[in-house]
């Protein structure tokens, strides 16, 4: 039965803007051998950045490859309900958390308990000075060391928001949490990170003030 005219829009509704990656996915599925390589080259750095910061280095290459192989196997089931990047980050999140669980590199609960029992146990490098901190590589090293002391979930949220600069909506899709929950957890994670990073922050602020 046709809808009454008052329910019909006066102007034709424009289709939602298509995800450009969806085209590459379709090209891959129709047999274009270059399409997956294009997707890989586009996302290898963001995914590697996330993985390396989650698992701390040595397994990052293998896990990044694992993420893309899983994506390749699952491409047929990707329907484009979410952005390809969000879908890929979701695979990366599961792969990283499984790896951490499997290797017990970071038991979130025990670490959280440990940190609650010994508050203020920040890994301060007393030899660090403002000149060394000003060097990008040193700064990156210190930031990553402090990040590694965070519980896995908080670390993941910080990485997605502040290192990968994903929107709250995208993070909500990747983590399967509500946006309100994501915002609240990210704020708490930032405060916890700031507390651990405080000695270095003071060093930098003092150096800037000098």
């Amino acid at each position, binding site marked *: 039965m046709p809808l009454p005219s008052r329910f019909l829009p006066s102007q034709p509704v424009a289709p939602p803007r298509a995800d450009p990656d969806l085209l590459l996915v379709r090209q891959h599925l129709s047999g274009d051998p270059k399409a997956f390589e294009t997707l890989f080259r586009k996302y290898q750095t963001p995914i590697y950045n996330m993985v390396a910061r989650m698992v701390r280095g040595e397994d990052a290459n293998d896990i990044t490859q694992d993420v893309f*192989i899983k994506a390749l196997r699952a491409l047929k089931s990707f329907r484009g309900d979410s952005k390809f990047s969000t879908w890929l980050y979701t695979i990366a999140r599961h792969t990283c958390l499984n790896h951490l669980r499997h290797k017990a590199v970071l038991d979130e609960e025990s670490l959280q308990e440990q940190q609650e029992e010994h508050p203020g146990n920040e890994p301060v490098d007393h030899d660090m000075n403002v000149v060394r901190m000003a060097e990008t590589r040193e*700064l990156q090293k210190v*930031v990553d060391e402090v990040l590694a002391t965070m519980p896995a979930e908080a670390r993941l949220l910080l990485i997605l928001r502040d290192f990968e600069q994903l929107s709250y909506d995208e993070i909500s899709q990747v983590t399967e949490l509500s946006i309100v929950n994501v915002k609240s957890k990210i704020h708490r994670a930032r405060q916890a990170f700031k507390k651990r990073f405080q000695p270095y922050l003071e060093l930098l602020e003092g150096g800037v003030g000098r």
Partner: protein
Amino acid sequence: MSRLEIHPGGVVTCQQTREALSDYLEGGLDPPDHAALAAHIEQCAGCTREARELSALLSLIHERVPPLEPAVDLWAEMQPKIQHVLAEERLTVLGRLRLRGERLMNNVAMGMILFTQVLAINTQSHMQKYLLADPFRGAAEDEAG
């Protein structure tokens, strides 16, 4: 847009301010809430310090910490795995079932080999105590000496 529950007198507490600092710094608050927080931060030394430090930390991470990049060409390393997956995808349903069956048999065979090895070691350690000493061993050594 987030919405604060501001006290009836229009007063924002330090706790409310600190809980909403991320939203405040990222411009995620309603304009009246943003103004109320700004007014509180301006007259509260503790919240001013908190806001300044969090803002400095976020700027530092956003602007001065570059993304980590792989040191090797991962695409080249992944090629054999990709070819393997693509070859698997080209197989017919029957071919895939056969491949899975072969893998299963392979794993079962590996498991059986391991089990046999463990069983052999276990049996040897249990049978050790029943072994009799060689009666001719001492005599042979005496003769040689």
